[in-house]
């Protein structure tokens, strides 16, 4: 069998499948999502026999579903990220009292840092609060072993078991031998067994069950101390100078930190050997089973120690338990850790920090530093630093909404529609949380899954003078949005919910959800309708709009904001990861004025500013430029540029004189103005204008001809004068139509086809870029760094590196 490179999460999935898991369920969340995805992939390949795998609507649903499967006698795997367990905790707390039948393992991924989370909560702490055993791997290999062992433990003690990897386990890879095919175990004893005295939790039963839990935990602690494979997760080693006899220094570590400690200890020993310095004798132990605390193994570890350094991430879970143990046993050792300032109180650990702390603990600080850098050679050996100036000039690069993201249009439309009105914009969890960044500045709050809808209600009650707006994504909507909706309708809260429907769970890697209907088992069920759910939850004003259509979106939001009571706008636009990108847009550098409006309004990462680009209207200001590799052709920027310098889909305009595009924009705007006017005066005008607009758009999509546009303009005028509309609407329509005419008259100056203009801009760009790169391409003199090409030249005949 060839070994495969597997990420920790993939290895966990394989471990569960090899343990005969029959039902796998969870809700996506970084860093846990790849576990369920791997099971689904194995199932789709036909390699995971007898397994059912699903993305449930949320974590609580998943865990309850799995508990049903457990009572029905099969093994179940639950996965989520740390905050997901908060959602599932209602089920967890009680099901531990009821007890499991088929093994029930919860893989809950913690996220020290945090790297992609709202909290740094510690699931080991949660496990002890819930009185559920927890395993804590230090490598992907251990995670794989632990998941298998966890199923056995679960069935043996009829307890749920938590395995708690962290990001650096989940997303680290190593090579594994895994089974090609796996088979789910059949249900125990013919499936569900009727026994209401066990499966129905009641106060009396809970009291008994609590006693059973209290009895089994010490037994499990004993198993952890003395039985394989668990005792191997609590392995101990001794090293350092033997002549000092018994070690008095002890290092206790958990999770990935144990791997950092191993690395740091190796570095210390290597350097000490080089420096001919003795390392004091020490004992090191990993605690792979933090709860219940494996006291007998800990007892063996602490024997004879005078000082113990506890290294762990997140909370001081090992440290606190060690302190309690020490107190109870009247231990004579000092404990150093988070609580004493001897370790980081939060965030991730790393080898560098652990190394420094262990050196200090062992009294080696400063003695090994000379030997710190032992390279493969002394090849120009010295550390390289950027100048301070260059360092501060490095561009910040926080995550941003992707180029072509539909949420950008939604955020922009809401801001436009609000105008000067005061509002509080309540955000939620998902890609759209990134909308809080400059320049969109689209979110004022963000709390937890579904929390935007409900927070907005509190804001509406407390500050009725402000518009209370909630954003929610489609997956989040189904996960935990709906109870908040019914509350708004029931209690009559005046909020507007902006549903950002991108047809996927994007942030975590595009998982399907109830609104898509796709399932991991391959079947496509009828997608649930967000609109129908809103309606069922008492929302009466619901607008749907295309997130990329600025005018339509602004109008939709305006309508919803004007409505008193709960209202909603559903922005539709697929995540860019789901659809094939369209042709990138082109900035016409004959028109771009360099005003930067396209950048400051929407901050699309595909638009940047090149101060060296020149054009007739931008002179030496520079111009905006499009990264063709990133641009998806969503067209939002074309509606933002006040000079209509950005054009969509060059194919549409191929061969057409460039002025047509400007005119078509104006006709479009005229139509949009009329539409807005028509909304204020519902009636025939609204219908005819909307029809005409749709038609005009359709034609623009097919091929724009000057005649067609003239036609449009004429029809606009006809509508404006003939329709029985308000004076205001007629006036707006007339002005707009006149504008359209004017543009048609004015833009006779030939600028070449748009394609030609685009090509010219492109050429200018490429010339500039080539100039920049040219400076670094080897030109024969030996000063300055080599480029790849010159490195080859220099090594010719020497067959070695360029030294």
């Amino acid at each position, binding site marked *: 069998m060839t070994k495969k490179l597997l990420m920790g999460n993939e290895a966990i999935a394989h471990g569960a499948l090899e343990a005969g898991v029959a039902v796998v369920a969870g809700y996506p969340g970084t860093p846990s999502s790849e576990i369920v995805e791997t099971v689904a992939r194995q199932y789709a390949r036909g390699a995971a026999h007898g397994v059912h795998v699903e993305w449930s609507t949320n974590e609580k649903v998943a865990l309850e579903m799995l508990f049903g499967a457990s009572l029905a006698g099969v093994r179940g795997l639950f996965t989520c990220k740390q905050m997901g367990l908060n959602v599932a905790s209602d089920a967890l707390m009680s099901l531990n009292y009821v007890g499991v039948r088929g093994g029930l393992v919860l893989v809950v991924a913690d996220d020290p840092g945090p790297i992609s989370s709202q909290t740094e909560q510690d699931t080991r702490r949660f496990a002890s609060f819930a009185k559920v055993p927890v395993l804590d791997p230090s490598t992907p290999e251990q995670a794989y072993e632990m998941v298998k062992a966890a199923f056995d433990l679960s069935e043996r003690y009829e307890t749920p078991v938590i395995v708690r990897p962290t990001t650096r386990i989940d997303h680290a890879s190593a090579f594994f031998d895994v089974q090609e095919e796996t088979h789910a175990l059949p249900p125990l004893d013919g499936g569900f067994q009727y026994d209401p005295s066990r499966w129905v939790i009641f106060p009396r039963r809970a009291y008994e069950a609590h006693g059973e839990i209290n009895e089994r935990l010490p037994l499990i602690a004993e198993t952890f101390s003395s039985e394989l494979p668990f005792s191997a997760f609590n392995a101990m080693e001794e090293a350092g100078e033997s002549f000092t006899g018994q070690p008095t220094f002890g290092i206790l570590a958990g999770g990935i930190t144990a791997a950092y400690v191993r690395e740091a200890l190796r570095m210390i020993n290597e350097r000490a050997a080089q420096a001919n310095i003795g390392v004091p004798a020490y004992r090191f132990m990993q605690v792979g089973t933090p709860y219940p605390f494996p006291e007998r193994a800990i007892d063996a570890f602490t024997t004879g120690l005078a000082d113990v350094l506890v290294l762990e991430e997140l909370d001081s879970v090992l440290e606190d338990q060690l302190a309690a143990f020490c107190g109870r046993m009247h231990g004579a050792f000092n404990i150093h850790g988070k609580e004493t300032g001897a370790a980081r109180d939060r965030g991730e650990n790393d080898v560098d920090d652990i190394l420094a702390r262990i050196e200090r603990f062992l009294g080696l600080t400063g003695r090994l530093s000379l030997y710190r850098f032992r390279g493969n050679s002394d090849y120009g050996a010295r550390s390289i630093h950027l100048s301070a100036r260059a360092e501060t000039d490095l*561009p910040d690069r926080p995550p941003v909404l992707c180029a072509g993201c539909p949420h950008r249009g939604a955020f922009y439309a809401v801001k436009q529609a609000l105008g000067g009105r005061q509002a509080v914009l309540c955000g939620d969890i998902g890609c759209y949380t990134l909308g809080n960044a400059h320049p969109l500045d689209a979110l004022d709050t963000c709390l937890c899954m579904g929390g935007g809808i409900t927070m907005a209600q509190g804001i509406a009650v407390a500050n009725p003078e402000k518009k209370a707006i909630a954003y929610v994504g489609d997956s989040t909507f189904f996960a935990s949005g709906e109870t908040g909706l019914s509350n708004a309708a029931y209690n009559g809260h005046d909020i507007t919910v902006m549903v950002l429907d991108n047809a996927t769970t994007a942030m975590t890697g595009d998982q399907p959800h109830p609104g898509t209907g796709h399932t991991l088992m391959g079947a496509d069920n009828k997608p649930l309708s967000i609109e129908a759910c809103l309606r069922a939850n008492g929302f009466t004003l619901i607008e749907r709009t295309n997130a990329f259509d600025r005018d339509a979106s602004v109008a939709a939001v305006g309508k919803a904001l004007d409505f008193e009571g709960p209202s909603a706008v559903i922005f539709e636009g697929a995540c860019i990861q789901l659809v094939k990108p369209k042709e990138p847009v082109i900035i016409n550098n004959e028109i771009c004025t360099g005003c930067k409006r396209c950048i400051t309004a929407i901050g699309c990462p595909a638009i940047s500013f090149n101060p060296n680009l020149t054009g007739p209207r931008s002179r030496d200001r520079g111009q905006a430029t499009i990264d063709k590799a990133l641009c998806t052709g969503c067209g939002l920027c074309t509606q933002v540029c006040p000079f209509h310098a950005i054009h969509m889909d060059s194919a549409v305009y191929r061969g057409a004189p460039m002025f047509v595009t400007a005119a078509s924009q104006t006709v479009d705007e005229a139509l949009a103005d009329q539409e807005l006017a028509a909304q204020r005066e519902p009636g025939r005008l609204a219908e005819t204008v909307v029809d005409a607009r749709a038609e005009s758009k359709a034609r623009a999509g097919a091929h724009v001809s000057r005649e067609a546009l003239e036609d449009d303009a004429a029809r606009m005028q006809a509508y404006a004068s003939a329709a029985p509309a308000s004076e205001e609407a007629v006036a707006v329509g007339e002005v707009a139509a006149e504008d359209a005419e004017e543009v048609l008259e004015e833009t006779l100056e030939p600028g070449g086809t748009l394609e030609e203009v685009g090509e010219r801009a492109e050429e200018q760009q490429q010339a500039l870029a080539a100039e920049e790169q040219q400076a670094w*391409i080897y030109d024969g003199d030996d000063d300055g760094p080599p480029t790849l090409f010159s490195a080859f030249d220099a090594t010719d005949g020497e067959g070695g590196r360029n030294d």
Partner: protein
Amino acid sequence: MINVMLTGVGGQGTVLASKILAQAAQDKGWHVRTAETIGMAQRGGSVVSHVRMGDRGEEVFSPLIPKGSADMIIAFEPAEGARMLPYLAPHGMLVSATTGIPSVSSALGQNPYRGAQVIAALADAFADAPERLVIVPDAAILKRVGNSRVLNTVLLASAIAVDFLPITLDDLYGAVEVCVKPAYIDMNLQAIDLTLG
């Protein structure tokens, strides 16, 4: 132990490159660990992949490279390479693409970011050890290849071609064939050849 850090901007393909390196090391019988940036940062943020290889038969414990110990940093974007310099070992080499990727925050600022400025700053920083900085004219090579998606292979080929790591081009060919989707293998092998001129 050989530590290679791959750094760039979310979406540039560092993950596949780190897989290919890991595969090459595995094929040589070394113990390997890698770590990836997955999550929010993939949305156009800075991403880093760590590849650690026990070339002397040693076991790799931590998946993350400690500061000052990367034998090589392969930068898919010059500013990202510059950002990671504290990880470079005192003998380590930086192999960097030339093309800068502007960030939204820099586009909003007064001085838009240009890759060339960073390359100049890097040249300064390496002034005393110029042989430890290799600048890859990625735009020119990608133009030759005719497909911008193979940037990762181009950079890997460059990194191996300078003959600093104990990994050969043959190792690279072999690993590409294992790691890359069958439909793209030829394109990637061709990219290696075109990188080498």
